[in-house]
């Protein structure tokens, strides 16, 4: 049996899945000040009466690191940043203990200027005096040659608890994002480590000695052990959980738009033949752009509990949420109240909904029925417009080859999968207002936890070969080898797959679930003078986000018994 747990803003959803399907689900309230108790009580309740040895896998999706970053509640970090020529690194300053240093590497990974050992030693002294334990080291172009980061780390290592190196977090080129991502990894490391060690200890006490997997923003998982070096990858895993929960019900031959309609927001994502679309660069959290792999998601401030009001004679919905719907004792009318007034939703205080909506109706000079329909309509239309906007943005992303521009793939989903609290109420109307073929994700109330439970381990490898200089390297994987002039793109792809397989297994993947693919393969002849002097090869490969195969039957089961689930959740 496996457990999936997804902590949301108001409550945590927990599911227990077995070969026969969904065995049990529960919801526990989230205490944002004490996530540990929230997670633990969820795990305790779901395992009540279950023999510990029957549990083979636990996957957790929490808001721990996201909250820490958003609320800036993390320990101080030292940052050492070496830029070489280009934009002044001061503008990428992340925190007060931020030190630009000398040293320079160029685009091909050649050292242009060495680091200054004495300068690093002096910075290390300052950091120690400030009581700093965790340091991030980032050099420009370190993904082409990590030597300077490694040299700096060597000088620091004895004096600090943990040093985070920029080249280890991603193979992508983007120095400012590498700085921000390394900083976040270092900043949330102590909180992350303490939290999951405590969870693990508590579970061990109960006799649960299974590996703990943690959900990432790209819809994949990693084991707690491997997350220690990359805790930043756990930020914003919530939207990913929902998307993964909808995969089993998406067509494997068509594109689908996934809508997770919550209380405060609606999150959207795209599935292409059951594989979620990834954001090519990395997640953005508030103003911070990172290299953290994530799904391409878009979040808007429209949900079941969004505040409804009239501004300058016009109806407005969201983006703020002032509390529950009035039907549930909330302070202001919401789209949910409109659903109550129209008789679509029941089991709440319809009188309160009507009272709130009447004041809106009076302001607009229309009746209750009209105002309810208008609110519901506007909420649906806004969601559809934003979804179209996201699709347009995805399709307008620049490409760099003639082939891609001419034959380029464009996303055009015809199917829509809706999940989240008010999903079934919205689905019908969304279909009426659009050309989408809309369906509600079975188990829509806990699909996010199911998604977390079934998500497979994902990772990515970036390989770079320069046969003129005679090497192939994947610094992120601590891999460098000498190669001859005849090293080809095919050799590079083979090598990338080999490294990817190793990495995935080490991060907790099953051999059965290694669905690998090449994301990018480019080869350039390097010509100097009038002669070809070598090849410049770039390969990027990934394990696709998806569901673990072992529990395929679970998805089938949920799907076939959807009626019962929809009614009961």
């Amino acid at each position, binding site marked *: 049996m496996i457990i999936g747990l997804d902590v949301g803003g108001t409550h945590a959803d927990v599911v227990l899945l077995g070969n026969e399907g969904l065995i049990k689900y529960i919801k526990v309230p989230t205490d944002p000040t004490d996530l540990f108790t929230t997670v633990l009580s969820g795990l305790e309740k779901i395992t009540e009466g279950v023999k510990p040895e029957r549990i083979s896998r636990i996957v957790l999706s929490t808001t721990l690191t996201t909250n820490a970053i958003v609320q800036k509640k993390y320990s101080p970090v030292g940052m050492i940043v070496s*830029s070489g*020529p*280009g*934009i*002044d690194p001061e*503008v990428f300053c992340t925190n007060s203990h931020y030190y630009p240093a000398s040293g*320079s590497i*160029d*685009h*091909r990974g050649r050292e*242009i200027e060495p680091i200054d050992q004495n300068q690093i030693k002096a910075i290390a002294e300052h950091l120690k005096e400030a009581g700093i334990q965790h340091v991030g080291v980032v050099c*420009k*172009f370190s993904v082409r040659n990590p030597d300077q980061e490694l040299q700096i780390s060597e000088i620091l290592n004895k004096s600090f608890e943990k040093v985070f190196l920029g080249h280890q977090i991603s193979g*992508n*080129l*983007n*120095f*400012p*994002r590498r700085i921000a991502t390394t900083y976040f990894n270092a900043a949330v490391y102590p909180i992350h480590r303490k939290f999951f060690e405590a969870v693990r200890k508590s579970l061990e006490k109960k006799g649960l000695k299974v590996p703990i997997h943690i959900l990432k923003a790209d819809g994949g998982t990693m084991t707690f052990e491997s997350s220690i070096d990359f805790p930043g990858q756990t930020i914003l895993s919530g939207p990913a959980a929902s998307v993964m929960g909808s995969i089993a019900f998406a067509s494997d031959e068509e594109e689908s738009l996934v809508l997770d309609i919550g209380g405060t927001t609606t999150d959207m994502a795209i599935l292409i033949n059951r594989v979620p679309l990834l954001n090519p*660069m990395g997640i953005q959290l508030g*103003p911070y*752009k990172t290299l953290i792999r994530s799904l391409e998601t878009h979040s808007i401030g429209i949900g079941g509990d969004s505040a409804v009001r009239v501004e300058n004679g016009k109806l407005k919905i969201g983006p703020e949420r002032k509390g529950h719907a009035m039907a549930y004792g909330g302070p202001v009318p919401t789209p949910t109240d409109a659903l109550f007034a129209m008789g679509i939703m029941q089991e709440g205080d319809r009188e309160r909904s009507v009272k709130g909506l009447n004041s809106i109706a009076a302001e607009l000079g229309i009746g209750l029925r009209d105002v309810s329909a208008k609110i519901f309509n506007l909420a649906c239309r806004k969601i559809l417009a934003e979804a179209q906007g996201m699709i347009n943005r995805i399709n*307008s*992303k*620049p*490409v*760099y*080859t*003639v*082939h891609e*521009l*001419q034959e380029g793939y464009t996303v055009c989903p015809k199917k829509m999968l809706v999940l989240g609290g008010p999903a079934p109420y919205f689905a019908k109307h969304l279909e009426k207002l659009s050309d989408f073929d809309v369906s509600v994700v079975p188990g829509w109330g806990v699909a996010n936890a199911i998604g977390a439970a079934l998500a497979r381990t994902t990772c990515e490898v970036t390989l770079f070969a320069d046969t003129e200089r005679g090497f192939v390297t994947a610094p992120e994987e601590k891999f460098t080898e000498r190669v001859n002039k005849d090293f080809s793109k095919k050799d590079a792809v083979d090598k990338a797959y080999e490294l990817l397989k190793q990495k995935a297994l080490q991060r907790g993947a099953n051999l059965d679930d290694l669905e690998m693919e090449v994301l990018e393969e*480019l080869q*350039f*002849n*390097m*010509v100097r*003078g*009038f*002669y*070809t002097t070598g090849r*410049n090869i770039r390969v990027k490969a990934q394990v696709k986000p998806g569901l673990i195969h072992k529990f395929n039957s679970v998805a089938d089961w949920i799907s076939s018994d959807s009626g019962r689930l929809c009614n009961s959740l």
Partner: protein
Amino acid sequence: MLHAKYKTGLVFFPAFDWAISPTHPEREERLLYTQDQVFEEGLFDIDGIIEFKPDLVTIEDVQRVHFCVPDVCNVMTESHFISAGGAKTIGMALLDRKIERGFALVRPPGHHAMRVVHGARGFCNINIEAIMIEFLRQTYNIKKVAIVDTDCHHGDGTQDIYWHDPNTLFISLHQDGRTLYPGSGFTNEMGGPTAIGTTLNIPLPPQTSEEGFLYTIENIVLPIINDFKPEIIINSAGQDNHFSDPITNMNFSAQGYAHLTRLLKPDIAVLEGGYSIEGALPYVNLGIILAMAGLDYSRVKEPNYDPASIRQKTKVTEWIKQTGEVVLNNWQQKEKIKSEILNAKEFDERKRNIYYDTDNLIETQIETLRVCSDCSGVLKIDSSSDRGFRILAVHIPRKACKDCKEIGYRWYESEKSDRYDFVFLQDRTEDQYRVKKLK
């Protein structure tokens, strides 16, 4: 976080799967290291720098500028449709006010492509700036445009297209034509009889350095532009004046290019040449983009940059100052020279042989212009190449007078001789292009 002072649009299209030939300077690898630098610097993440996907130009967009022989599709590859499209995208974004400035970092380039196109010359098939400008004129009713060509090679294609257009100021700064391809661009090349002075050439001696370029921009180019008062300034931003460029002999730098951009303040820059793909382009492009966006570029320096070692000699400085005086004088005298010519004759003829180095063919042209006092004058070109095609091309300019328009149609309709494979008519007053096949 960085915020661009000027909202700057970028089209980056490195055409990673297109080359003239595998070892040609205009090959797949050309913008590879520029991409690396631009990505690693995180330029596309800067608030106020927006990357656009290039549109494709249409056949009509090309026919608004060129006479392609035998037709558009035969002289263009897919990559040309995209690189010209990239420039067009930037132009539209600018005039739709989505951006305040824009840079089309695209390849292949275009400034050696002339009005009649039989093939590729100077790595160029079609003139991507001219196609953009004429599209903008047609769509947004722009009138006065200034083009400043800072490629190391004379922009002879752009010069040819705007030779008779008094509403387009074309200024080319380049290495002296006696020492470099295409061998033209001297101070006495000043435009046709009805557009004298709106073509200006500033040949610079080999080994011109930052001092010489910036002097020329500040003291010659900017005063002339201020005088002309264009609605849009376009920079044909070739980067082959760099001291490390393998096919030229100048001593310019990334700092210099960035500074030039800050002085010139182009609304639109379009990449032209530049073949020092590792030592120059990554840094020069970074400098230009930062300068366009109004951001600090003081730390953008190529690894082996040593200002002292590339400082220009006094002789070079003197030469540049003298050339500048000649150009300024020509600009100031243009109305006088024009009035003398206008009364002299009704038709003006130029005979030329044009060599297409890239495709190795020779074109022979006889161009006849009606020297009109009411408009810039209708013109026809009798053009043949040693590949075998001979065509007659009639161009009626955008603001053509009634008489010129009538003459243009008469030339087009009355030509029936099978000496010509085709007769073309480009009627810019109606935005029309007609083709008559005679063989």
